[in-house]
């Protein structure tokens, strides 16, 4: 992620922004000029029907896919997010829908995957792992985030769905310094665990990080989101403040029944701020 055009950082402006992003998979146009933005320390819900392009957009912003066209801005500067490493250097972490955990490794190994601690001194030069340090760090992270795990030495595959979710969320929150993406973080969870994850999202936001929540579950979205952005057929069709809008409006925008955005600027939902700037 090399800054290509330096511009003064806009404090009040979006922290992370996508403009006119396009992505094709063979003949399928997953994204057709999608816009998206998230401001510092807010929860933005990214909603849309199946196939609207939510996951594709998240993967582009977290460096797994590359956009065919369009630009990504971080803190006002144009950046290219060429790899997961690049996203990480920007302080962006992602909880994937499939959790992206190594099932045969224990939670500590997963939390530190790709960022393993090594011993100090000559052993460290040889790459000898600091397993104790990683276990301690993991237990601290779990304690802070309220993830209940008695046995942190068991392979992650033996954990329940909620516990695994806890490991994946803890990993993202531990390493993120600016933005956390969460792709359907509660899809596999029971009601108690869902509540925990939603509380966690609020706490993460209050600690100063931005959270992008991808979800199908409208009550959940309205419970935690500050703003809601709607993707439909690979484009952003609406951007609402959660407090100003009803669930019917959001669902209407998702399905195409209602095509005005929350501010009623444009009946095609294209009068958003970013577009006007262009």
């Amino acid at each position: 992620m090399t800054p290509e055009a330096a511009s003064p950082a806009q404090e009040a402006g979006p922290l992370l922004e996508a403009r006119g992003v396009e992505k094709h998979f063979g003949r399928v146009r997953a994204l057709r000029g999608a816009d998206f933005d998230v401001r510092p320390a807010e929860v933005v819900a990214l909603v849309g029907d199946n196939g609207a392009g939510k996951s594709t957009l998240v993967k582009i912003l977290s460096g797994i896919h590359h956009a065919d066209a369009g630009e990504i801005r971080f803190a006002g500067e144009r950046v290219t997010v060429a790899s997961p490493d690049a996203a990480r250097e920007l302080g962006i972490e992602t909880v994937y829908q499939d959790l992206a955990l190594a099932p045969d490794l224990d939670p500590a190994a997963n939390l530190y995957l790709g960022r393993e601690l090594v011993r100090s001194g000559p052993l460290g030069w040889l790459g000898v792992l600091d397993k104790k340090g990683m276990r301690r760090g993991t237990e601290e992270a779990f304690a802070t985030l309220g993830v209940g795990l008695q046995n942190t030495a068991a392979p992650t595959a033996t954990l329940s769905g909620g516990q695994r979710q806890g490991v994946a969320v803890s990993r993202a929150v531990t390493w993120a310094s600016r933005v956390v993406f969460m792709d359907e973080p509660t899809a596999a969870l029971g009601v108690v665990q869902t509540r925990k994850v939603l509380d966690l999202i609020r706490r993460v936001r209050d600690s100063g990080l931005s959270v992008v929540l991808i979800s199908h579950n409208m009550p959940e979205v309205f419970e935690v989101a500050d703003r809601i952005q709607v993707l439909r057929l690979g484009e952003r069709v609406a951007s609402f403040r959660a407090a100003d809008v009803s669930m019917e409006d959001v669902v209407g925008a998702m399905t195409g029944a209602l095509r005005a955005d929350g501010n009623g600027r444009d009946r095609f939902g294209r009068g958003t701020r970013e577009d006007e700037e262009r």
Partner: protein
Amino acid sequence: MKPADEVSARAAEAAAPTELRDEDVQEEQSWLQRLAGSNIWIFLILGGICLIFALLSFDSFASSTNLRNIAVDASVLLVLAVGSTFVIVTAGIDLSVGSVLVFSGVVSAKLMEAVGGESTGVILLGLGAALGSGLAWGLFNGVIIAKLKVPALIVTLGSFGAALGFAQLITDGVDVREVPFPLVESVGTGQLFGEIPYLVVIAVGVALVFGVVLALTRFGRHTYAVGSNEEAARRAGIHVDRHLIKVYALAGTLSGLAGFMSLARFATTTIGGHSTDNLQAIAAVVIGGTSLFGGIGSVLGTVAGVFIPAVLENGFVILGVQPFWQEVAVGGVLILAVYLDQLRRRARYRE
């Protein structure tokens, strides 16, 4: 808002009892998993086999000469199997190890013959040539597998044939018998403190070093991660392609070392003698508890997995049982080992 609320509430009700059940299952699994997941089984089996042979024929089986023979026979295979352990932990496979062993031995022998003399310098040159040849084949395998995404089974089946073919082209199919005598005398048949054969010392050293690398280092951790969930490793910022290339390069280099050891032991290139080394190495790794599906395994287990067939063969010979039974018995142990792995996986994965 109402209907959606009701739906999620219903879903929650449905989910709650499931959670309780999960806890029970976890309790039950933990001991099952401890049993199936550890290396203890395989060492018990090895110990049991040794005990039976010792009881039936103590003087012949348990003599230091015989135990030394078993260890020497196993040493070359152990070096191959250590490399295969890394490959199989990444959920890969390397069928080329025996042919790369032959190729490396041939290149090394030819070079030493061409340079001439029996100095230490020539021998070290030969060692370098063997390691270099093995490394080259390993890099070839790794690059094709990681970058061109050709399945490891096919790539290494190809290099299995090609490496042996090149070895025969270089020698016209005739074994090279010009091996420097000091090499045969020292590494090949010499013994540390007059007790432990150097071949065994080398093999134990390789197993020790790479056992530690796999179990305790970042390189080892990444090897497990790539085998356990390649995509997760990639998303975690691990350079999966580069790592796979390194792992196959390691397996190739160890095959080169094994080629040099074999050269020292037999004082000839044994071109025709390694066509089943690959399967023996894979069998040893799998018997040792390393999962063909990747993500699980250890070098310690592989050590036991190498010795079970070696002890069986030796014991049958001593007892006057037809040695062909050894292959039957190893086949049985192999299938049992994979069955245990299946049990373990079933106990681990909850879905």
